[in-house]
């Protein structure tokens, strides 16, 4: 069963095209919606949450219209990019209010459970006005988990979180998937998913779907790419080409495709005499990933 389906979806904000004929589907389990800022991720999530309507095309969430999916109890929980709380209420009061709005039976049990899951029990009885940004983010995540929804949609969940909390959120996502729930994460930060091999990813760029890939493929690309920064960039590019590497220039860096990590030494050797500032592998920005995947696609199609 597809948990989310977008078919030829268009969304305009005045003259701006936010989604330009987007079609993708997400299976059960973990799915990522990747893309740089302004690629249309949040617009897609807001359509899924029923906060806005698409201008054309159709969208199904768990087989239903986004605005109807939660009518008979909570099936989808959302962490949306924009949220705000009453600062005079405590985190516990907020979750109790949300649990009552959702019509959950035994709201206290649900609230205590999600507070424990997001590790917020310590702050639960303090006014929200005293919370840090990270704690607010945890409270928003707790809202998304209330009512044990089948699908949890998290828009930029790692924003405002420190390394430790990000790691525990990643564990939580893995735990939810293991429990049999579907989790859809929208993000522009790839590093949190380094360890993951299973899952589905959709890459959005300028309101269009660039590609749909398995998460494992992304991670393979990530591992087999070396990023070189230095001056002059043209000299770095030429030296690497001369040494037989497949590489290309993106803004202030050269991306080099390697087949194994040992090639890093050969890259450093090839760059002898050129001012190199940084050579790294396994660290990519989402825009670079887009370039690499498009390049790989071209190579595959040429090969076939």
């Amino acid at each position, binding site marked *: 069963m597809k948990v989310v389906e977008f078919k030829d979806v268009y969304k305009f904000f005045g003259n701006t095209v936010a989604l330009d004929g987007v079609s993708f589907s997400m299976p059960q389990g973990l799915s990522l919606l990747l893309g740089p800022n302004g690629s249309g991720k949040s617009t897609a999530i807001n359509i899924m949450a029923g906060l806005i309507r698409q201008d054309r095309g159709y969208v199904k969430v768990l087989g239903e219209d986004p605005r109807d999916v939660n009518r008979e109890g909570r099936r989808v929980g959302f962490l949306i990019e924009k949220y705000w709380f009453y600062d*005079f209420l405590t985190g516990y009061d907020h979750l109790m209010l*949300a649990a009552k709005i959702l019509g959950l039976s035994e709201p206290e049990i649900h609230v205590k459970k999600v507070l424990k899951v997001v590790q917020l029990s310590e702050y639960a009885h303090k006014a929200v006005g005293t919370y840090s940004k990270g704690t607010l983010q945890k409270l928003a995540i707790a809202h998304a988990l209330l009512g044990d929804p089948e699908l949890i949609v998290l828009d930029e969940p790692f924003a405002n979180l420190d390394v430790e909390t990000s790691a525990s959120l990643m564990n939580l996502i893995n735990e939810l998937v293991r429990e049999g729930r579907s989790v859809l994460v929208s993000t522009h930060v790839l590093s949190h998913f380094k360890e993951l091999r299973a899952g589905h990813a959709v890459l959005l760029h300028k309101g269009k779907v660039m590609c749909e890939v398995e998460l494992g493929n992304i991670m393979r690309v990530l591992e087999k790419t070396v990023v070189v920064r230095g001056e002059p960039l043209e000299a770095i590019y030429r030296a690497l080409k001369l040494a037989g590497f497949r590489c290309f220039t993106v803004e202030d860096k050269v991306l080099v495709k390697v087949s194994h990590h040992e090639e890093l030494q050969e890259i450093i050797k090839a760059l002898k005499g050129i001012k190199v500032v940084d050579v790294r592998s396994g660290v990519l920005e989402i825009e670079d990933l887009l370039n690499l995947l498009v390049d790989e696609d071209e190579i595959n199609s040429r090969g076939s």
Partner: protein
Amino acid sequence: MKLIAAEVRESFRFPVPELCIVAVSLVVIPWTAYTAGRAAALPCTQSLTIIEEYARSITLRSYGQVAPIVALLTTILSSLSLARDYERGKMHLIFTLIRSRGIYVLSKALANSVLPILSAVYSLGLAIALSTPRFPWLAYSATIVVLSLESIFFALLSTLIATLAKRLVPSLVLSTLTTLLLSTLAGTLELTGRVSVAEMLPPLSFRKLLAAFMQGKEVHIPASYNVVYMLITAIMLYYYSENKLEVSK
């Protein structure tokens, strides 16, 4: 209900109630200072009928002073509250939880008319108490009922405007202008002799409703106008927020 209670509590946060009290007092007290002198001049031995009539007229005149400020307060509070929810993202979070957005927005309009109604209770009571030797409880209660209806009508109208305009400043400006325009239009029509038409428009239609309450059957009761206006506004607000309101960009 808990959400409405939280909304009411939100509208009662410093300095909003304080500002409301100051606003209504500034309108009512200078005016009553003049009429209080006249009331004190009345001998206490006068017949009950005369006092009743006097009290009644004071009530009507007090209503005339309080009604515009109540309409304006409701307009400002309702439009600010909804637009602020939109801009801060509270609406986004709530709409992912609730099943009916229409009911939420309607109840939000009602929650925002509570403070202006309480301000009316205070200011009207103050005006009448300062002006008459005997407090006309019946007339006072009727006036409060009508002012509450008026407050709810303007809350619904301003919330509807805010759902369309969404942003803080446009919502505030548009809803305030609409309230002022309705009042000015009704006032101008009344001054130019077209009283029956003027009294069909919201601010004056509520005054006519009050007069009908207090004077009995000889005055045509324009309750139907007010009921129709309130229903149309509530239905539009419900339909728009349930089906058309886009809460994010």
